[in-house]
């Protein structure tokens, strides 16, 4: 009897099991999805049976209740404000970072003089001066933008300088010997070589801007998302808190993905 059952199981189970295994081996993405589902399952079980409802809610109720987050008065405006802060901070970081990076990087002397200062400032834990930003720029969006810029600007400067500096001297020499003017050298030699590292800098700058703006939002906020994370934390509403955090995480991932795609696209010419 048991022998027959084993036979039956072997007949039914093995081909399927083998096919599943082969499928997983051929597509790591599938296994990755499985891991994600497993993690969500653990979260669901933990929230349902192990942890107090005041502190954690299961993913099923977070995602089914996500509309209540948007229905909370002010949340949509807060998300809009945060998105605006991110956009403005990023634009300012890119503009200043590019100008300063070119000014520092294009001349050997200015590079050697000012690069150590830039690196020193980059090495300072800017979070310690967050209270100063609030003191100078108030508790509104201006301080978030300024703090975001302070985080976003340095990676852009450093990568722009690196991009300008890493051009092979032979390219500059040959351009010069063929009679290129300074402007022509900049336009046709330095600029194309700078583009990939500029986009790499924009990607790092976006990470910095996200960090800076979110830190400042969490620190003090009257209308932005920081206000609502504090509100949901203090009123022990993990469902809404997790919903809001997920929305922000998706927003951050979207922004990161945009700059990453741009980097891949515009640095292609060098690898082709």
């Amino acid at each position, binding site marked *: 009897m048991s022998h027959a059952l084993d036979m039956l199981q072997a007949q039914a189970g093995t081909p399927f099991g083998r096919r599943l295994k082969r499928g997983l081996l051929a597509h790591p993405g599938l296994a990755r999805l499985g891991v994600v589902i497993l993690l969500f399952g653990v979260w669901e079980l933990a929230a349902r049976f192990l942890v107090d409802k005041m502190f954690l809610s299961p993913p099923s109720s977070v995602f089914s209740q996500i509309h209540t987050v948007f229905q909370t008065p002010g949340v949509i405006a807060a998300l809009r404000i945060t998105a605006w802060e991110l956009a403005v901070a990023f634009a300012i970081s890119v503009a200043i970072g590019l100008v300063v990076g070119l000014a520092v990087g294009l001349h050997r002397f200015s590079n050697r003089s000012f690069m150590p200062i830039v690196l020193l400032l980059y090495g300072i834990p800017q*979070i310690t001066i967050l209270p100063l930003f609030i003191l100078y720029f108030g508790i509104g969006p201006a301080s978030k933008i300024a703090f975001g810029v302070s985080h976003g600007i340095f990676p852009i400067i450093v990568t722009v300088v690196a991009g300008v500096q890493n051009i092979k001297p032979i390219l500059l020499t040959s351009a010069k010997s063929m009679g290129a003017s300074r402007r022509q050298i900049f336009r046709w030699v330095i600029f194309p070589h700078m583009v990939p590292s500029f986009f790499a800098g924009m990607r790092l700058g976006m990470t910095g801007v996200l960090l800076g703006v979110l830190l400042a939002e969490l620190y003090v906020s009257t209308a932005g998302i920081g206000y609502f994370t504090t509100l949901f934390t203090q009123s022990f509403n993990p469902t809404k808190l997790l919903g809001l955090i997920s929305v922000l995480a998706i927003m951050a*991932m979207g922004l990161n993905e945009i700059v990453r795609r741009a980097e891949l696209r515009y640095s292609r010419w060098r690898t082709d």
Partner: protein
Amino acid sequence: MTVRSKRDWNRLASRAVQAAFVIVLVGLWYLGTTRWRISPILLPNPVMVWHELKDILSTGEYIADLRITLTELAIAFSRSSTAGIALGYLISRSRYSIRVFEPLLAGMYSVPIILFLPLYILFFGLGPASKIAIGATISFFPIVLNTIAGFGYVDRIFILSARSMGASDYQLFRWVLLPAAFPVILTGLRIGFTIALLSILGSETIASLAGLGHRIVHLAEGMDTARMFAYIAFVVAIALFLNITTSTLAARGRR
């Protein structure tokens, strides 16, 4: 003028420019507070800040806060490095698990994890536990990713030749994998240490009961700006010292 002396002269000029930059900055700061009457609440006099700094250092009132922050940092970093290296090594053992887990971890790392701070405070409270947890979480990712990169992308020719010369598992690990992976792991540990420090200071600034970040916020809220500047200078000096120490250690270990 010889090439050598010209280079020396150039270096001297760079140093002079740097010194001038700092002097002009401090000069403007001094003039701004004395001549142009910027409110001392916004910008305290540099001399006053210097006296406050001396006071902080001589009375030793920083010791309690410094101890809390450094303890949090030590616990968070030891947890994240243990977990990161162990998990990274396990994942790196097969090409398949690298392909499954690495994009997942890299994707999580691209989310600003500081977003989860309110959640951590909800779980672990306002005390040191939430700082340790957030510091450990944030620094875990660069460590695990670098460990995977270090162990996972050792040139196969090295492994094959060691195997064909009859190396045991232990010998392969000790003499091939570890030397190849060690510099990359050190880089991960250095990055992890730096961002653990940053996130602990950050979470202390945002919501806490004690620690250096808390002290700065406390002084800011009391409008005691001169003392706050002194504390900021103190914390920046400590952070730079720690970062330089870890970079030096990492650079030495890499050789």
